[in-house]
């Protein structure tokens, strides 16, 4: 794969997405859920960034904000040099052709009242790309590309297995020929055997079509398999960001260390030293002072409670947000 270090395809700068909490009779805004609170990263063309974290840490919201499915509060998203957040809603269509999303739930992401041809052909119809028999031809091509038989054209989602549905979801996402695909936990709802098929299909498509992925997941083994770089999110912030092997071999942030130590090792008898995190993930509506991780961090000290370390580069390409990382 060609690396173009200088021109990232996607550049996210200090992105913030807050959801208002309304209370009372008049719907007064009582506070905000800070789902994404200052996230920055860049993805180079043809590469995959894995975004991991616990449920509720805001990783899905990052993906949806990039696609303008939820409004951002502030920040900048540069895609191919153009600022995504500045595009007026009426002129989003050209952007939609460039970036697409596939979803976690294979049962909820396909309209149950539409057949496969309509589902996969809809983007082509909406964008006026193809009609009639040429649209059908394109749908057949897309289905073949994701390993489904064209005989399924008139089938409905409930007649497919989870893995097949995810393939339909991929075909729909690819219909417009995008450069960039947000994969929002595409395999976490699938059986392990089907997971590998879908992951391999995604990697295969990346190699063939030169796609760039933002791969959101909570399964670290899957992320290690598919990603070039990995970013770890905690409570709306990225706490560590590094090339895949460096992150997995030599994690700096205590949260990443705890996450990695939780991966089960398929070797009976091997006793592993686990870092067991205590306590619950704090509410993003009321995040703790200082470092958001300090209430659960085994290394926390007074300084962590008061001020927050920003993401700093400790080695080349290895960023972490922790005072203790230096030591």
């Amino acid at each position, binding site marked *: 794969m060609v690396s173009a270090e200088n021109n990232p395809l996607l550049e996210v700068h200090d992105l913030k997405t807050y959801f208002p909490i309304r209370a009372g009779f008049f719907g007064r805004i009582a506070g905000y859920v800070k789902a994404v609170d200052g996230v920055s990263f860049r993805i180079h063309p043809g590469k995959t960034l894995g975004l991991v974290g616990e449920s509720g840490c805001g990783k899905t919201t990052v993906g*949806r904000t990039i*696609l303008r*499915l939820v409004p951002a509060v502030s920040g900048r998203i540069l895609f191919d040099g153009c600022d995504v957040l500045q595009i007026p809603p009426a002129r*989003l*269509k050209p952007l*939609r*052709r460039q970036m*697409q*999303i596939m*979803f*976690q*739930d294979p049962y*909820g*992401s*396909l*309209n*149950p*009242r*539409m*057949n*496969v041809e309509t589902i996969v052909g*809809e*983007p082509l119809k*909406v*964008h006026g790309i193809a009609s009639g028999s040429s649209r059908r031809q394109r749908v057949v091509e897309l289905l073949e590309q994701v*390993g*489904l*038989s064209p*005989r*399924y*054209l*008139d*089938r*409905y989602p*409930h*007649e497919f*297995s989870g*893995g*097949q549905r995810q*393939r339909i*979801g991929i075909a*729909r996402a690819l*219909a*417009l020929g995008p450069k960039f695909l947000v994969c929002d936990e595409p395999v976490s709802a699938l059986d392990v055997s089907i997971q590998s*098929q879908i992951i*391999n*299909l995604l*990697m*295969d498509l990346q*190699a063939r079509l030169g796609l760039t992925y933002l791969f959101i997941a909570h399964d670290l083994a899957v992320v290690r398999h598919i990603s070039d770089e990995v970013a770890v999110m905690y409570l709306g912030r990225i706490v560590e960001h590094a090339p895949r092997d460096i992150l997995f071999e030599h994690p700096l942030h205590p949260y990443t260390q705890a996450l990695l130590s939780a991966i089960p090792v398929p070797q009976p008898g091997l006793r592993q030293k686990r870092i067991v995190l205590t306590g619950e993930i704090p509410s993003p509506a009321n995040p703790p002072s200082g470092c958001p991780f300090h209430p659960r961090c085994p290394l926390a000290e007074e300084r962590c409670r008061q001020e927050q370390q920003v993401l700093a580069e400790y080695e080349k390409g290895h960023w972490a947000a922790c005072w203790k990382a230096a030591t």
Partner: protein
Amino acid sequence: MLGPTRESNSNEHPAFAGLEEQIPPGRSLWADGLRRLRRQRLAVVCFWIVVLYLGLAGFEFAVELFDWEKPAFVRWNEIVGPSYQKPMESYEWTDEQGRSCIRRAWMGTDFMGRSTLRRTLYGAKTSITVALCASLISLAIGVPLGAAAGYFRGWIDDLIIWLISTLSTIPYLLLLMAFAVVLRDRTFWGIELRGITSVYLAMGLTSWVGICRLIRGEFIKRKESEYVLAAKATGCSNARIIFSHLLPNVFHIIIIDLSLRFVDFIHAEVILSFLGLGETDKPSWGAMIDAARAELARDVWWEMTAATVAIFLLSLSLNLLGDALRDCLDPKLRMD
């Protein structure tokens, strides 16, 4: 890097080559629901009973509209025997031509000597016209308002919710009567509201709250679903999302609600007629029951019975059919 996968592989395997032709075509949720419905014998019976009622009403309507030659059972106005002739008993009668004959009225006659059976059959037309028109009016108001409120939220939602809450604080029957009284025998924009027109207008204008709330709730729920997000991500317009993604997915709810609400409308028509606000110059079940108030004291039970049985049979069939529809059309309630 990976070629064909197991899922697609099995289909192309030579051993499965013959099977390919036998794979049935895709079946939509609608087709699937109807197939399930056909398997329930009771629902099928109820369906045909409802169709019979609708057919009868349609026929009576067509006869009046196109001025066809009326078969005997449609001539409800004809005097066929003496006043309050008991059912199933034969009697001597002189018809219009002056010929004397022996006759039998299956369900007896009313005080003017008109056949109760014919009047009951005609009542189906009155009831079904009212229920159908009221349903259409309440759908035409409730569905768009509910869809707009659920999809756009914000001030549109606030406004519609305010309207709903205001309407639902007034007791339904009082509201219905108020509308029926106000609309009765008035002329709006050159259209005269006579007889049952004001009845179904009143019902339609007061009963859209339920369906509106239902649709609003479904829209709020489904708006956040991943298939709607996917449609947004591909660049579908709001209109497209509402009409081709959301409405088809709540349509079965509209149908189920309609089949159950139909019964309420028939009952409401009976109540309004009973209170003297409904149809006055043509037979209706409510008017027949109203007349029976005085008749029961004279041991004339057949008019009351005929109207009640007709209402009972139609209500029961509609209710059972509605329940069966709910079981079959709602994908979440599917048992297998």
